[in-house]
């Protein structure tokens, strides 16, 4: 066993032990299991929310994006900061409403606000369909990281099986408490590793940050800014905004907000988290350092740029530390995803449809679903092929379609009815699926638009359609009720 592999294995076992111990004598009711009894203070909520940022995407994808695309990669610095700004006002009312009614999950919230079981079911289905590809992405990243960092000693498939088994074990036993405590080690490790790499690599290869950027600008002029067409400033603004709106529509992120014991936690986090996510700047530095050092990685291989550069720079033990960090970036979000997915199936699909269900039977079912869901995700990760990329693209835009109905439900007078919200979400999700499957872009759909507007992210179109349909159906319903003799519904 190589040093690198030993370090990765040790970290994995440590995280597993910590996750299993986090239960510490508590009775695991559904409320304890999914939302930690709503008793988490600022630090644990902070770690959970921050933990969801530093996924394998941030680690591999962030550096890969900088390496492959250059300037457009800057958007990952921005959308998270905007998510936190929105969270300051969005989360406290959601939290207060959920606490008062003892809600566990995202569909619970929609179903209660709109007094519509149908909407709850729809939101649950959208959530599950979006979560699966997200989990598959974590597993695939895990496989790549472990096989690269172990110098090929462990195959990606073996790493995926072991990782999925470990995360399933501690999710079933400890629920959200396991995730919070493994998030704590992960964050310490990633802070150290990413900041070190982001500074060391530019200094080692170029003699500093400024010389690195000057060298890149000399070799590839304009690479460090946004291009005129394609991923232009219009693309940048529309993508950043869309991603920021979609952030809190993810079911597992939504679920983590229920863990807080006090809404001030969110407001405090809205101040600190923008600074904390600047760690991503160092991830970008790593990707840029690789541009001139390991040139020629194309397409999906761009995501390997950080590891390729690390392998040619560092001794095995440090490659092992980087690999271990990468493993944790997959496990922690993975555990939140599995738990939310299982809660969605048990609490929001099974329970509303089976009147005999009790709290205890729902909790048992949720835990039973975790391994099944993990198996489904492992299956996709090993045999999914390219379809998973399409699913992921859809997943992100799918959950964003929940945002208009969420925002409207928090207004003093909700302008949307349940029927309107359902119609809007269906229209939005349908058009996202259509545009992704048919590979459409705004420019392709509306070739007559001015050149600049053709770069708008196609997700904006779906969101607009969503809002228009939702408002139209809500209005039409209200008119039908108000009309003389009209007996709608």
């Amino acid at each position, binding site marked *: 066993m190589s040093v690198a592999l030993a370090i990765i294995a040790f970290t994995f076992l440590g995280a597993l032990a910590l996750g299993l111990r986090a239960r510490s004598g508590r009775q695991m009711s559904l409320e304890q299991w999914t939302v930690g009894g709503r008793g988490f203070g600022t630090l644990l909520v902070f770690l959970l929310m921050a933990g969801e940022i530093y996924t394998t995407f941030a680690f591999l994808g962030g550096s890969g994006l900088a390496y492959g695309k250059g300037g457009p990669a800057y958007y990952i610095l921005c959308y998270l900061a905007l998510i936190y700004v929105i969270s*300051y006002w969005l989360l*406290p009312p959601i939290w207060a409403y959920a606490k008062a009614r003892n809600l566990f999950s995202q569909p619970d919230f929609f179903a209660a606000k709109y007094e519509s079981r149908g909407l709850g079911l729809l939101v649950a289905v959208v959530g599950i369909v979006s979560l699966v590809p997200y989990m598959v992405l974590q597993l695939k990243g895990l496989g790549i990281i472990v096989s690269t960092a172990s110098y090929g000693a462990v195959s990606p498939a073996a790493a995926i099986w072991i990782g999925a088994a470990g995360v399933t074990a501690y999710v079933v036993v400890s629920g959200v408490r396991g995730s919070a405590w493994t998030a704590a080690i992960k964050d310490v490790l990633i802070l150290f590793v990413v900041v070190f790499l982001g500074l060391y690599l530019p200094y080692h290869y170029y003699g500093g940050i400024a010389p690195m950027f000057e060298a890149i600008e000399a070799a590839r002029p304009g690479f460090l*800014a946004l291009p005129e067409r394609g991923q232009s400033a219009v693309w940048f603004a529309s993508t950043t905004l869309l991603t920021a709106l979609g952030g809190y529509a993810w079911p597992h992120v939504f679920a983590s907000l229920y863990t807080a014991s006090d809404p001030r936690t969110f407001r405090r986090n809205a*101040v600190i988290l*923008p600074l904390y996510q600047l760690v991503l700047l160092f991830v970008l530095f790593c990707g840029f350092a690789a541009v001139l050092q390991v040139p020629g990685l194309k397409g999906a291989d761009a995501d390997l740029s950080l590891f390729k550069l690390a392998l040619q720079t560092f001794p095995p033990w440090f490659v092992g530390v980087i690999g271990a960090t990468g493993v944790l970036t997959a496990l922690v979000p993975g555990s939140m995803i599995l738990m939310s997915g299982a809660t969605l199936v048990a609490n929001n699909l099974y329970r509303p449809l089976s009147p005999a269900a009790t709290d205890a039977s729902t909790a048992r079912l949720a835990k039973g679903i975790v391994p099944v869901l993990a198996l489904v995700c492992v299956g996709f990760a090993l045999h999914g092929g390219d379809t998973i990329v399409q699913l992921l693209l859809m997943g992100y835009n799918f959950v964003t379609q929940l945002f208009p109905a969420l925002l409207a439900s*928090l207004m003093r007078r909700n302008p949307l009815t349940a029927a309107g919200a359902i119609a809007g979400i269906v229209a939005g999700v349908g058009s996202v699926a259509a545009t992704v499957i048919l590979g459409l872009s705004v420019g392709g759909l509306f070739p007559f638009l001015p050149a600049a507007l053709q770069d708008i992210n196609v997700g904006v179109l779906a969101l607009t359609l969503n809002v228009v349909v939702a408002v139209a159906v809500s209005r039409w319903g209200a008119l039908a009720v108000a009309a003389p003799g009209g007996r709608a519904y």
Partner: protein
Amino acid sequence: MHHLRWLALLPFLGMLVGPFFLNRVTPFVLGMPLLMAWLVFCVLGTSAVMGVIYLTDPANRTAGGTDSSGEGR
């Protein structure tokens, strides 16, 4: 101090509108390309703005902070 919450629009303006005007590599600022340096500045500014809003928000002074009058005005 209610009007201070409008400061929250600044991060949106800086990040979404700024790139239209500052989409350049040079001059380098603190060693970073101009656009990147601007966006980093915006992130730091976001934290500062949210800090000011947090400190002046009456909702954070009530016990438990659950007073809904502090939100959604």
